[in-house]
C-alpha cells in the first residue's frame, strides 16, 4: 500500500514542472503541453484522494474520478480549440513565440 503522500508529492512535482514550463517556454505548443501537464497533475491528485477516501470510509467514493472525467473532457475540447487557434495564429503571423503574440496589451 503506497501512502497518499507519495502521490501528492509526485503530483506537486508534475504541477510545478508544468508551471515552470509555462513560464519559461516561448513556443506556444510547449506552453500548451505544460498546461496538459498541470491538468494531469491535478487529475493524479483526484484519483489518489478517491482511493484514499474509499479506504478511510470503507466504501467506494467516486466523486474525484468523476471530476477527472470532466477534466479530461475539458482538456480534450481545449486541445481541439487551442490547436485550431495555434494553427490560425501561425498562419497569420508566421510565428509560435508567445512573446510576439501580445496584441492584447493596453
Amino acid at each position, binding site marked *: 500500500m503506497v501512502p497518499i503522500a507519495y502521490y501528492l508529492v509526485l503530483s506537486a512535482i508534475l504541477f510545478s514542472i508544468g*508551471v515552470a514550463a*509555462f*513560464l519559461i517556454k*516561448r513556443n506556444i505548443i510547449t*506552453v500548451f503541453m505544460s498546461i496538459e501537464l498541470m491538468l494531469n497533475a491535478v487529475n493524479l491528485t483526484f484519483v489518489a484522494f478517491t482511493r484514499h477516501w474509499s479506504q478511510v470510509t470503507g466504501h467506494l467514493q467516486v466523486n474525484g474520478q468523476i471530476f477527472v472525467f470532466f477534466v479530461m473532457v475539458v482538456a480534450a475540447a481545449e486541445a481541439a480549440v487551442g490547436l485550431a487557434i495555434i494553427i490560425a495564429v501561425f498562419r497569420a503571423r508566421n510565428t509560435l513565440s*508567445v*512573446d510576439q*503574440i*501580445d*496584441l*492584447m*496589451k*493596453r
Partner: protein
Amino acid sequence: MTDLHLWLIPLVPFAGFLVNGLLGRKAPKPVVSAVALIGALIPMLQVSALVWNYHALTLPHVETLGAWIAAGAFHADFSFLLDQLTLVMLCVVTGVGFLIHVYSVGYMAEEEGYWRFFAYMNLFLFFMLTLVLAENFLLMFVGWEGVGLASYLLIGFYYTKDSAANAGKKAFIVNRIGDVGFLLAMFLLIAHFGTLSFGQVFAKIAADPTLQGGVLTVIALFLVLGATGKSAQIPLYVWLPDAMEGPTPVSALIHAATMVTAGVYMIARTHVIFDRSPLALSVVAIIGCATAFFAATIGMAQTDIKRVLAYSTVSQLGYMFLGCGVAAYTAGIFHLVTHAFFKALLFLAAGSVIHALSGEQDMRVMGGLRKKIPVTFWTMTAAVFAISGFPPLAGFVSKDEILYQAFVSSNPAGKILWAVGLFTAGLTSFYMFRLWYLTFFRESRLEQAHVHDREDHGAAVHARKDSKITVEAEHHAHPVHESPGVMLIPLMILALLSVIGGWMGWPEGLGGSNWFAHWLNPIFATGASASPAGSKSLELALASISTLIAVLGWFIAHLMYFAKPELPARLAHQVRAIYALVKNKYWVDEIYGALIVTPVLFIARYVLAALIDRGVIDGGSLAVGYSAQGFGALVARIQSGNIRSYAGWLALFAALLLAASYFGWTAHFWVR
C-alpha cells in the same frame, strides 16, 4: 364690502406682463399697448372703487390668500393689508402708473422691443403693488426685490448700449447692499418677535412699553440701510443718476414717482419701530437732510436734462427722509404724493422735450423751445414752480410742511435741519429755473451745436445721445415738433395735479384744514408722531421765509441764465475748485470705485477666481482626476499582453496565497 379682492390689484398687471412677455413679440403694437394699458387701467379702476366706497370700508383690512411659509411656530402668509397709508400709495402707483403707460404709448412708438418695454412696465406695477399691499415684511421684500428687478430690466432696456447695461448692473448691485440691511432686519424681527406680520410685530411692540432703543434701534438702522439703497440716499444714492440710461417714461415711473419712494413708504409703514428709537430717527433725518443738500448742489452743475432731474429726485427723496426722521411721517408721505405728481410731470415733460429734439438731452444746446412746444412748456412750467415751492402749488405745501415739522420737532438738531432744508429749497429753485431757462428761453443753440458736432465727425453726438432715434438726429430729419396728444394728455393731467394736488394737505396754520394729515391720522397718531405744538404765526413766518428763498433762487437763475448768459461761465471760472467739485459730483463715484469697487474686483479676480476657484476647486478636482489617471497608467502596465507575464503574476500570487493559508494567516486576515 367684506370681500375686496385685493389680490386682483397686483395680479392684473402680472397677467398683462405674461401676455405681452410671452406673446408680444409677434403681436402688432396696438394689441401690445392695449394689453399693457388694460393691465394698468384695471388696478386703477379698482383702487378708484375702493376710494369711492371709502366710507363702507373697515380699515385696516387684512386679506389672507393662504399660507406661504410655515416652519414651527413661524409662519408667513400671502396676505394683503389695506389701510389709509396703503390706499394713498395705491392711488399714486396706479394713477401715475397708468398715466405714464399712456404717455409711453406715444413716446416708445418707434422703438425696437416695444412689447418688451410694456411687459416690463406691467411687471413693475405687479411688484410695486405687491410691495405696497403686503401685510408682512417677507411679502414686502418680494415686491421690494421685484421692483429692483424691473428697474434693472428697464434701465438696461437699450441693452446693446454699454453704458445702459452697466447702469442696470450698478443699480442692481447697489440695491443688493441695501437689501442685506432689509434681510438682517427681518432676521432680527424673527428672532425677537417670532413673526414678520406687520400687525403682530407692531402689536407686540405696543404691548411692551419698556421696549425702547436697543434691538429696535438695530432693526430700525438695518431697515434704514435697506431704505437708503432703494430710495437713493447717502451713501447708496449713486445708482439713481446712472439709471437715467433707461427710457424717459421709466425714469418718470420707477426712478421718480414710485419705486424710489418705497424706502420712504417702508419707514412710514414701520414707524412703530422708529418711534421707539430716537437714534434711528435722527439717523434718518440727518441722512435725508444731507442727501437733499448734496444732491441739490450736484444738480446745479449738471448739463444733461435728465441728470438734473435725477439729482433733483435724490434731493427731494432726502426731504421725505427728513420728514420721516423728525417723526412727521404724514409730511413725508404727503411730499411723496406731491413729488410723484410734479416729478413724474418733469420727467415726462423732459421726455417730450427730448422727443421734440429727436433725442437731444444736453441743455447747453437747447433753448428757445417755449414757442415751438407750448404745451410741454406750460406743463413743465407748472412742475418747475411746484417743485421750487411757490404757493399755492403742490410742492410748496408738502415741502413747507416738512420744514415746519423739522423746525418744531423735539430733535435737538431740528433748527439746523430746518436751515439746511431751507437753503436746499433755494438751491432747488435755482437749478429748476436754470433748467427752465436753458431749455425754453433765449434763442435755440441747436443749429450751431450740430454744425459743431459735424466738425467733430459726430463723435460728440454719439456720446451724448439717448440711443433713441440717433440716426434721425444725425440727419436732422425731423424739425422741432410738439409731441402727439397721447403724450400731452398725461402731461396736462399731471400739471393739474401739480397745481392743486397740495391743497388736500393745506396746513391749518395757513388757513387750511390739512385734510390729508387727519386722514392718515389713524396710522400715525400713535406714539411720538403726534405733531408737537407750534403756532399759526410761526408756521406763517416759516412759509414766508421759504417762499422768499424760492423767489431768490428764481431770481439768481433768471440773472444767470436769462439776463446775463455770460455770467455762469465767469462765475464758474472764479470758483473753479468748487465748481469742479460739484460738476464732478464730489468724485463720489471715483471714491467708491477706488475704495470699494477696485478692491472687491481685485479680490474677486485674483483671490476668489484665480486662487479659490481655479486653484483650490478646479485644482482639487483636476488632482483627483489626474491621480486616478496616473494610478491607472501605473496599473495598466501590468496588462502587457504577454501571456507569460500574466502567468507569472498568477503563479506569484497563488504561491503567496498558499503560503498565507499554510502559515494560518487566512483566518485572521479575512475574519477580522
